[in-house]
Each structure stands twice: as C-alpha cells, then as structure tokens.
C-alpha cells in the first residue's frame, strides 16, 4: 500500500475507534440529545462545531432543523457524516464543511451552536476560543450554545498505588518525584473521594473571553484523615441547557484528572487547595491545617519537573563538550 494511503488508513482506524468510544457513552449521548431537543426548534439553523461522527448534526436535522452545518477538520470523517445524514434521511439539510472550527468562515445565521469540544481537562480542545468566535460571528441574537457553561469540580482522593514500579523491582523515587508534579488521568474506578466535590471555577460560555486567563481557583475541604489524601481529582461539569448537566466524574468516556500531592500528616484537618488551571502555568498548591494545629504546605507544577530535567540536560551537554 502506498505511504499516504497507509497513513490515511491508520488515521481512519484510530479516528473511528476514538469516535466509537464516544458513541458508546450513553450518559453523554442522553444529555446532549436532551439539550438539543430542548434547543432546536422546527425551522432552526444549527451549527455543529467539531462534528466528529456527525451525530449531533444529524440529530438536529431529525429534530426539525431547517439547515445544519457540520464543521469537521478530519477529512476521513466527512464521508462518515454524509453517510449518517443519508441513512437518517436528512442529507438535504445537513451540509458538511471540512474546516478547522477555530478558523471556519460562516454567516451569522445560526439559532443553535453545538460543539462537543470539552476535553478531560475541560479547555484543552479549544472550547473557549471556538465558542467565543461562534458566539460573536455565527450565532443570532437570542441563540443558544450547547454547552453553555463549563465548570471544574474537585475533591481530595485516595491515590491508587501506581507511582513507580509495581511490584517494586528496583527503587524508582527519581521518577516518582517528577511525576508528583505532573497531572495524570484517573480511571473513575480509582476515584475514591475523601470529601464532597466542590466547584473550583465556572466559565459561562455565553460571556467568556478566550483571551482572559482562567482565574486561580480555591476550595476548602475538611478531611477525616489527611494521610489518606494522595491527590486532588478534578473533573468537568457541563451545563448543556436549562436543568441539563453532565458530569465527567464517572460513567462517561471522559477521565478525571489527578493532581498528585505529597504525603500529608495523619489525622483530621482542613485542606486549602489553590489551582491555576491555565495550561502554560499549571500549578496546584495545598495548605493543610490539622485539628492539633500542625501545618503543611506544598506547591506542585510540571514546571518544577521541567526545571529538574532541564538542569540534567544542561549538565549532559557541558559534559560532552
């Protein structure tokens, strides 16, 4: 098989596999379908940004939309969306535009903009700039966004014993000390919360400006035994429409994010957590005050890990000279 064809086949396979996982996410599907049913009026124009397999575009047409534009940058997905629209009998009302949702040019003619551009960490798939642009340029006055708000929710959690080698074949604290500064994904079955989840921050997509930095978020948690806390789990809560919320803590294809923490003292107390979720300067700090007055605080950031590795690289370069 020729190179480009082979590459396209590999891309098609991985893209379809990825979308299959989303299509199998019943909780996500029900929530988005409810939101579209609430928002799409007969005769409406609907824009689906980052359309993927096209399910929301096609569903919007089935709900009575007069015109639906599905914007998808993956070439291999364009015929997939078109086939789905034909199969559903709405091909005459679904137009597929192959373009990047961040740069697509359209008219201001849409009553509903839907975009499932929410990543495990909420904003890493370009949700804010894409929705701001859609809101400013494509959405009619009084139109609706789906989702319309996105929040980060956090809770202190136990951490499964997975840092380092299992079983401990050799010491691996050098790796573990670096990974203590790097967020990772937490499988929902591993998420054992030690306090009720609290909203860290909430972004209203109907007003948010992508140029604004996300505010540094703070939350307080009372824990029975701080020693049990291995990290802070963060997940996403989406408001898809009035009374329709979807949380990614468990039961969806999304994975919560684990912000690891260094060991805390034994006993009850209060954890003050501060999180800077901006990608380029991700940082989380915790200040613990125990019931007996003991205090412990620490900051974590991938930038610390970078500082350590950068120093080692510099030493290696000077040794080779």
């Amino acid at each position, binding site marked *: 098989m020729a190179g480009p064809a082979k590459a396209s086949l590999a891309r098609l396979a991985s893209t379809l596999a990825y979308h299959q996982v989303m299509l199998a996410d019943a909780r996500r599907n029900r929530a988005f379908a409810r939101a579209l049913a609430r928002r799409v009026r007969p005769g409406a124009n609907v824009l689906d940004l980052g359309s993927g397999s096209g399910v929301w575009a096609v569903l919007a047409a089935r709900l009575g939309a007069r015109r639906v534009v599905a914007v998808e940058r993956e070439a291999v997905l364009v015929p997939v969306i078109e086939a789905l629209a034909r199969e559903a009998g709405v091909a005459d009302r679904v137009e597929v535009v192959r373009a990047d949702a961040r740069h697509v040019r359209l008219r201001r003619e849409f009553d509903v903009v839907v975009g499932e551009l929410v990543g495990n960490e909420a904003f890493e798939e370009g949700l804010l700039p894409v929705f701001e642009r859609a809101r400013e340029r494509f959405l009619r006055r009084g139109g609706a966004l789906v989702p319309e708000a996105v929040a980060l929710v956090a809770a202190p959690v136990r951490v499964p014993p997975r840092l380092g080698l299992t079983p401990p074949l050799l010491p691996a604290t050098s790796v573990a000390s670096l990974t203590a500064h790097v967020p990772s994904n937490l499988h929902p079955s591993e998420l054992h919360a030690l306090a009720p989840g609290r909203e860290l921050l909430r972004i209203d997509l109907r007003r948010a400006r992508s140029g604004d930095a996300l505010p540094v978020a703070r939350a307080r948690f009372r824990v029975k035994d701080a020693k049990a806390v291995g990290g802070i789990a963060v997940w996403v809560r989406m408001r898809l429409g009035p009374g329709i919320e979807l949380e990614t803590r468990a039961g969806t294809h999304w994975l919560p994010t684990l912000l690891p923490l260094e060991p805390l003292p034994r006993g009850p107390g209060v954890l003050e957590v501060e999180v800077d979720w901006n990608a380029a300067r991700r940082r989380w700090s915790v200040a613990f005050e125990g019931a007996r007055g003991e205090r412990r605080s620490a*900051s974590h950031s991938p930038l*610390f890990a970078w500082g350590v590795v950068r120093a080692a690289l510099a030493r290696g370069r000077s040794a080779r000279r």
Partner: protein
Amino acid sequence: MSRSAQGRLAEVWARSARMVGRRIGDEYVLVPLAERGADLDSILNLSRVAAFVWEQLDGAKSGGQVVDAVLEQFEVERDRAERDYLELVETLVELDAVKRAPKRA
C-alpha cells in the same frame, strides 16, 4: 570590598510571592507564577548554597547577615560568599523574584 558592595550587603530582600521554590531530589527549582503564559526561561535552578540563600531572604536579614549564615553552614571564604550572594540577588532582582524590604526604623 568596595564601598558600593558594602552598601548592597546592607540591603534587605524578601522573597516575592510570585515565585515558588521546591526541592526535588538534588535540585532546587524556582518557578515564576506568571500572570500570563509562563516564561520557561524564568525558571531558575539553584545550587545548594543558592537555595540556602533563597530561604534566608525573609525580609528581615541584611545581605551581611545572610552571608554570615552561609559561612556558618558551608565551607566557603567570605569574599567568595559575598560575591556569589550579590550575583544571585542581582539575578533574582532581574526576574522580579525578590522585593526590597522596607527600611526598619
């Protein structure tokens, strides 16, 4: 020592709240808490002595007192300790990592 160096050693500096320091293994790393995107070049790796000095910059000790503390803790000559201290403070000032503490009455 020059008169200006003596003057600089009398100054009192305090760690800025916009920098966070962490010891990881053998490294001590200082990271800026930037308002906008992080400047990776502003991350500082401190030697053992520099990390010790950083922790002494509490807004109360003068440069001379910090150098005295270094001499108690490490085997180093005063001239060298003073020179290294002043160089480190200069770097930290450039990175906005320390603030001049108000003069005490």
